[in-house]
């Protein structure tokens, strides 16, 4: 009995430590994504970007954070005060929850430990991600509505309709992946992509599901409200969109959650379509099992860069174009992709 208790408490300590580490890494990456975003934007536009705070400006996120915390925290007079505070809180909470099911590696085996590098291996991992992504819209809607401002409301309504529309295509393109791998667990999906074809092509889902990957990627852009789908906060039409009335760290948490979402989406894309912690020629158990996290973080950073690259290349969609793309192109295409995948599995075994 006491051995069982010891085991349970050890598991709890391990998981708590892992959650804390993941939490800090997520926040750090989100903070440095703001710096990365500004640098990438600058380089794509022949500028230099922030380079005053510290060497190459690497202390810029700290300066931004200090600014966010010390600014006046303003709550509009006729707004719904509690919901106004709940909005950004809910948004950043939901964004942080998603990372729990992503497998960052196999097992950490250093210092005599044997730690699973995944917070929770639930057997419905991918649905968990979808569920929390679909909840992300509440933070925006509550915040936008509670601001008692027309622009905020428009931004909130745009965000919610956009996210509902693109969730469908996203879910349908994921179904094709599930058909191939036969599991909903993200660990299972990642493990299914180990190994190579013909010795050099990695067995990644992206080669089996190119169309599905494109659909998923476009939907991920739309779900994270990134350009070219950043209509909820498009400043040419809506001042600031759903966070028009927000200031100080409440605005900060909206912006921060956006970068967390971007990080998590990149991690999910790497896991579902690009083999997660698997890379041909690299065993994820190298370096006491830390090679897996290195590989998946490299992939994730690449996709974060692609997110930024797209943002600073493409112009924003018009709202009717956005809805057309979602409902008339992506959903039929993802259904077609699903049928083709099903037919392929039926014919080939």
């Amino acid at each position, binding site marked *: 009995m006491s051995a069982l208790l010891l085991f349970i408490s050890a598991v709890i300590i391990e998981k708590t430590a892992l959650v804390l580490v993941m939490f800090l890494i997520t926040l750090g990456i989100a903070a440095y994504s703001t710096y990365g975003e500004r640098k990438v934007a*600058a380089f*794509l536009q*022949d500028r*230099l970007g922030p*380079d005053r705070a510290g060497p190459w400006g690497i202390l810029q996120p700290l300066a931004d954070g200090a600014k966010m915390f010390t600014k006046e925290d303003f709550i509009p007079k006729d707004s719904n005060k509690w919901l106004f505070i709940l909005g950004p809180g809910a948004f950043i909470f939901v964004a942080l929850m998603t990372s729990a099911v992503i497998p960052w590696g196999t097992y950490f085996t250093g210092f005599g430990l044997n730690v699973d590098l995944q917070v929770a291996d639930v057997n419905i991992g991918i649905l968990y991600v979808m569920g929390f992504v679909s909840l992300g819209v509440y933070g925006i809607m509550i915040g936008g509505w509670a601001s008692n401002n027309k622009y905020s409301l428009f931004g909130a309504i745009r965000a919610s309709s956009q996210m509902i529309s693109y969730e469908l295509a996203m879910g349908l393109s994921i179904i094709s992946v599930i058909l191939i791998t036969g599991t909903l667990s993200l660990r299972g999906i990642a493990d299914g992509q180990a190994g190579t074809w013909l010795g050099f092509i990695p067995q990644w889902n992206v080669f089996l599901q190119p169309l599905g990957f494109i659909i998923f990627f476009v939907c991920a852009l739309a779900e994270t409200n990134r350009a070219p789908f950043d209509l909820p906060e498009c400043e040419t039409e809506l001042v600031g969109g759903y966070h028009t009335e927000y200031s100080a760290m409440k605005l900060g948490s909206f912006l921060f959650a956006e970068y967390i979402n971007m990080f998590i989406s990149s991690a999910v894309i790497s896991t579902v379509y690009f083999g997660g912690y698997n890379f041909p020629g690299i065993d994820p158990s190298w370096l006491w099992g830390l090679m897996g996290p290195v590989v998946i973080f490299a992939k994730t950073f690449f996709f974060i860069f692609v997110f930024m*690259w797209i943002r*600073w*290349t*493409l112009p924003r969609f018009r709202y009717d174009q956005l809805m057309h793309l979602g409902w008339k192109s992506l959903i039929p295409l993802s259904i077609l992709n699903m049928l083709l995948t099903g037919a392929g599995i039926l014919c080939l075994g």
Partner: protein
Amino acid sequence: MQSLSNRSKLVVNKEMTFMERIYLPAILKGMWTTLKHFFRNVTGKTATLRYPEVKRDFAPVYRGWHVLKRDEQGRENCTACGLCAVACPAEAITMTAAEREKGEEHLYREEKYAAVYEINMLRCIFCGLCEEACPKEAIFLTDRIVPTDYVRQNFVFGKDMLVEGVEPEKRINVKVRQKHVTEKK
């Protein structure tokens, strides 16, 4: 109308082809363009100069902050004739003349001098007509940038801001400008 440059494109409202309708080729083309810019800038070939540390070279005939010159003995050249004020298209220059007293010969070259000489830097358009009008080679535009301020009054530069110092190290070299202006005359 016939095109002279042969570069104009006729706009046709034609149906888009399949490749154009799926967007992706055009998007990839655009991303390739931005990626080229990205790598050009990552490798350090930016056009930007980090200003306070690195300064861009000015043209030798750059027209900036005015200077009222002194001659070799340190006497002010200006005789308050008012030609610069007349020439100024922006009405930026104003002055009050005064007569040189006994014992002030080491300060002013001529018998008359400007007791007050003001240029409103917010009005000035830095055209350089004042130096062209000046018969005494007293006013020149230099390659110094007019400093910024928060208050409008501080942009009315008096003699304290315009006249160069007496000491040799405080003199402002306007050789290039002088040559340029005198040749024009």
